[in-house]
């Protein structure tokens, strides 16, 4: 039988070549770049040491991008969790049309970001959008609201993102809910526990681990989200009111063509995430339930 280790390595080779060449090498190259002044297209480059990092430490735009990033990731995370967990609890109950609804709820997550964005830009359009029309008709506002103007662009971005990504929470949370033994609930019902107490004392402890993972993954994904933010606000105009770190890194590299500075921002993004993850793990390590 031909199970020689060499054949195993050969079968793995294409995967390792791609991941090594197109992920691991760029990671290392990125660190190297961040220590250099480099034009994005021209071959000009010069070693500058940590100068980019020193620059960003005092760069108001960097700190504002971190702040926008934290606001965006934080608020979208909380809202996704509330909506996603409620939806999952609902879809875990038995009722007619449940399976259809389980499919429909995934739609926002399956469609391309560009579609989610054009759709909400149309719904939120100040003159002809359905949202403003309903608000005006319902008497909730007197004049149309400029949802995509500088005062409300962050809210609109958060709304679009929550709509787009809450199904992720639904799917992962629902998968765990389905594995909770029904006997646990039966016993609690016999003891006369109401719906809220059953959730608080059975569902929540049982789903701690999956919540831990969901919060971790969603925060990382939202903090590094580029396309939704960029597509929603573009490059000029209102974009500076939602310029998160990924968008700032992109602008440095591909608009100002300062590849070295863009690379330094990418490294900073990674370090911030690493630090946040470490704090997160440490804060919850005390709870023995969390692996």
């Amino acid at each position, binding site marked *: 039988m031909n199970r020689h280790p060499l054949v195993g390595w050969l079968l793995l080779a294409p995967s390792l070549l791609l991941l090594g060449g*197109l992920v691991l090498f760029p990671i290392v190259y990125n660190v190297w770049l961040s220590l250099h002044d480099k034009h994005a297209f021209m071959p000009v480059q010069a070693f500058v040491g940590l100068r980019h990092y020193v620059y960003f430490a005092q760069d108001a735009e960097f700190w504002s991008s971190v702040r926008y990033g934290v606001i965006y990731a934080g608020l979208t995370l909380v809202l996704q969790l509330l909506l996603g967990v409620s939806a999952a609890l609902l879809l875990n109950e038995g009722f007619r049309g449940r399976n259809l609804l389980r499919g429909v709820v995934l739609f926002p997550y399956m*469609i391309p970001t560009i579609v989610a964005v*054009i759709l909400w830009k149309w*719904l939120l359009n100040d003159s002809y959008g359905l949202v403003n029309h309903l608000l005006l008709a319902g008497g909730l506002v007197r004049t149309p609201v400029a949802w995509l103007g500088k005062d409300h662009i962050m809210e609109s971005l958060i709304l679009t993102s929550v709509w787009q990504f809450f199904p992720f929470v639904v799917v992962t949370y629902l998968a765990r809910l389905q594995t909770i033994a029904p006997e646990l609930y039966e016993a609690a019902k016999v003891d006369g526990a109401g719906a809220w107490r059953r959730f608080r004392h059975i569902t929540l402890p049982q789903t701690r681990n999956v919540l831990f993972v969901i919060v971790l993954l969603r925060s990382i994904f939202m903090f590094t989200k580029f396309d939704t933010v960029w597509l929603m606000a573009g490059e000029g105009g209102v974009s500076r009111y939602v310029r998160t770190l990924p968008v700032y890194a992109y602008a440095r590299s591909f608009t100002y063509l300062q590849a070295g500075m863009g690379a330094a921002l990418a490294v900073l993004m990674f370090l911030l995430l690493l630090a946040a993850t470490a704090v997160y793990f440490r804060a919850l390590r005390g709870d023995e339930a969390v692996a």
Partner: protein
Amino acid sequence: MRRALALYGGGLVLLVIGAFPLAWMLSTALKPSGEIFATPPTLVPKVVTLENFQRLFAETSFLTYFTNSVLVSLATVGLTLSVSSMGAYALTRFTFAGRERVAGLILMTYMFAPIMIIIPFYILVKQLGIVNTRLALVLSYTTFCLPFCLWLLRSFFHSIPLELEEAALVDGADLRRAVWYVVLPLALPGLIAAGIFTFILAWNDFLFALVLITSDELKTLPVGVNDLFNATIVDWGMIMAAGVMITVPTIAFFVAVQRYLIQGWGAGGVKG
């Protein structure tokens, strides 16, 4: 009774959240331009027309973008499934020093969002001389789908008893035939889930297409459609028609194989 009311009320809210925006997109796409801007807006078009779609195909390069997206996505699915099933097979059926460490390393690469390495990635692709080609997109998407697909398929291959393969070998098949006729068919749900995941990632991607492609005739849908906003007057009917055209393949694909997808998601999680 109160329970049923709460369930169906909640269900209705969820239905509206999930489906209404898409229904509104379809409704706008099917309206003549006068009705699109009418007050009060009509939910169901009074007059159904395909003129927005006709304009989309006649006046923009939408068909080119669509073709590019289809080519790139299908090529990515083909390449990713071949590379990752070979790799996952090696990770489950061969024993060699460092195997588990390699598997761990592969999972680690999954932690890097494309935006974190897009700059060196771009410079690298440029130096390889494949910037502004569909090949560059296919390679990017394949690479970023690999960690997930490798881990997903690894868990599927793990669940297939080795004895089945051995039996085929005893019956005189060589390893290649045993894998092709015994292992892969049994791993089909995993392959389908990995294929869908890959297709959706490639079909939806915006960042790589934005950075790596410069000429209009090579653009894929997300970048091409975003360009439609650059017109002086935004043609909402046409843009919504474009939205419908991009959404249909995804949803059709997804509905066709939904149960496999959920199975796969349970096995490995998703990214995005």
